[in-house]
């Protein structure tokens, strides 16, 4: 599934409150089966873009279309082909691991025997066998992250939207989860939109790094990452990786500086 973003603008506030332009006429084609990383300073609207693509926010103007390259004429409703993994995870705290993972099937009306069987398989595949009956509050951050991933994967939707999913994890757990995600990507070849503010993560995971500007969010540059797959963490020390890192770093530094200046101004104004 291609994700075709055309002239998307998102404006918050208005009326009595000051308008904030989060996204400004942003256009990009996220290609089918590719791993795209959206990289930008905080507040640049990258999470908003992911939510608009997932049909969870509506853009002020512009359009997002999901296009199946095999049947480009068929119009597809937004949200039906994608599933989100949230930064805040948004696991249901009163539901056990298995009932969290099976939620999507439950609301679709899949009978219990079938949905639990499928949930069990996925829970095992993310390494959580034996924790089916635990509540999210009884798990570590990394384990909760795996539950969130399994809950999204069970939907078997071709597009995976990930909003800074590993931002809250400690360094070691983050590495393990990145490798896990790379393995899943190799196995499923989903279209992935991965929002992050970590340059290294974006290069390690992505086929392309979409660098965004500070508010209002525009695309500053799209940098293709042609490191071979399967990727591994050792690549971080290769000269190719280093060259890409330098390039992205220089682009992002200007934007982070700009974003900090904006925040200072907003703090001074309020």
């Amino acid at each position, binding site marked *: 599934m291609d994700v075709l973003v055309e002239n998307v603008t998102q404006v918050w506030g208005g009326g009595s409150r000051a308008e904030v332009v989060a996204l400004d006429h942003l256009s990009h084609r996220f290609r089918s089966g590719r791993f795209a990383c959206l990289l930008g300073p905080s507040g640049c609207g990258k999470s908003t873009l992911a*939510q608009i693509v*997932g049909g*969870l926010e509506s853009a002020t103007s512009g359009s997002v279309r999901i296009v199946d390259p095999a049947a480009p004429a068929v119009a597809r409703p937004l*949200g039906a082909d994608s*599933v*989100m993994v*949230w930064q*805040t995870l*948004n696991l*249901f*705290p*009163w539901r056990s691991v298995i009932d969290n993972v099976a*939620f*999507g099937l*439950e*609301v*679709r009306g899949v009978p219990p025997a079938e949905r639990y069987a499928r949930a069990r398989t996925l829970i095992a595949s993310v390494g959580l066998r034996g924790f089916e009956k635990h*509540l*999210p*509050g*009884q798990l570590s951050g990394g384990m909760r992250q795996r539950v969130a991933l399994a*809950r999204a994967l069970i*939907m078997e939707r071709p597009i995976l939207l990930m909003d800074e999913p590993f931002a809250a994890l400690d360094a070691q757990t983050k590495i393990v989860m990145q490798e896990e995600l790379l393995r899943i990507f190799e196995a499923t070849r989903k279209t992935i939109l991965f929002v992050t503010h970590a340059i290294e993560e974006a290069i390690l995971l992505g086929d392309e790094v979409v660098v965004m500007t500070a508010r209002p969010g525009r695309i500053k540059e799209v940098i293709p990452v042609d490191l071979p797959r399967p990727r591994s963490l050792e690549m971080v020390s290769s000269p190719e990786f280093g060259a890409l890192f330098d390039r992205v770093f220089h682009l992002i530094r200007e934007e982070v500086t700009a974003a900090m200046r904006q925040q200072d101004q907003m703090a001074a104004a309020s």
Partner: protein
Amino acid sequence: MTRKQGKGAAWFAERVLPIGSVVLFVLVWEVYVRARGIAPIYLPAPSAIAVYLWRMILDGTMEYHLGVTLLRIFAGFAVAAVAGVALGVAMGMSRIVAAVADVWIAALYPLPKISLIPLLIIWLGTGEAYRIVISAVTAFFPIVISTYAGIRQADRGLVKAAQDLGANARQIQLKVVIPAAIPAIFAGLHLGMGVTIILIVAAEMIGGSSQSGMGYLLINAGQVMETEKVFASLVVLAVVGAIVIKLQQWTDRRVAPWAHRDDR
């Protein structure tokens, strides 16, 4: 070694000190009353209160009045809980219900419910109905307000996640919004239980035609200056009230263990 000592000190502070303070208080009270020779009609010694309490338990008066009061408390609380949670949920799910109910709640909530007692006695007499109604009406408000607030403040992230996973509006209400409100509903039920206990005992003091209940026991003993009986009743009320609240907390933990985790 030092850590063990630290733990021992914490254990002493958390477990021994609270009980110790009660024991010390009772001892000081006993010694003070005996030393100063205070008349029991003003302040009976704890030992004298204990003797009266024991006698009242042996002849069955305490069990009878306590049982009657507890039944009334649970009846009033049950009515308030069912009505309060039901209306709170309905308000959370329908803007029209919320708008209409909000006017009534805004007008009636600040009214001290005890001021309704004369009217209720005119309408209902001084029987069981009046006591149940006055306590249920009072407990209803904190329950409905907490329930409504809990439903309105349901985590937007959870709602969006459910929507993303394909849940429709009705499924979101039933499977996300209402469960997410359970901690707030429990908070409302705790407040409701507290005021039910207060109102039932107060109502038993006024218009005690049924001649029963802890409130009747208290007011009756007070009128004939049996101060030991007054204190014995107060002790029972305090202990039973604490037990009821603890039971409620225990039920909460059983029903909604996720709501009490600190590490969520």
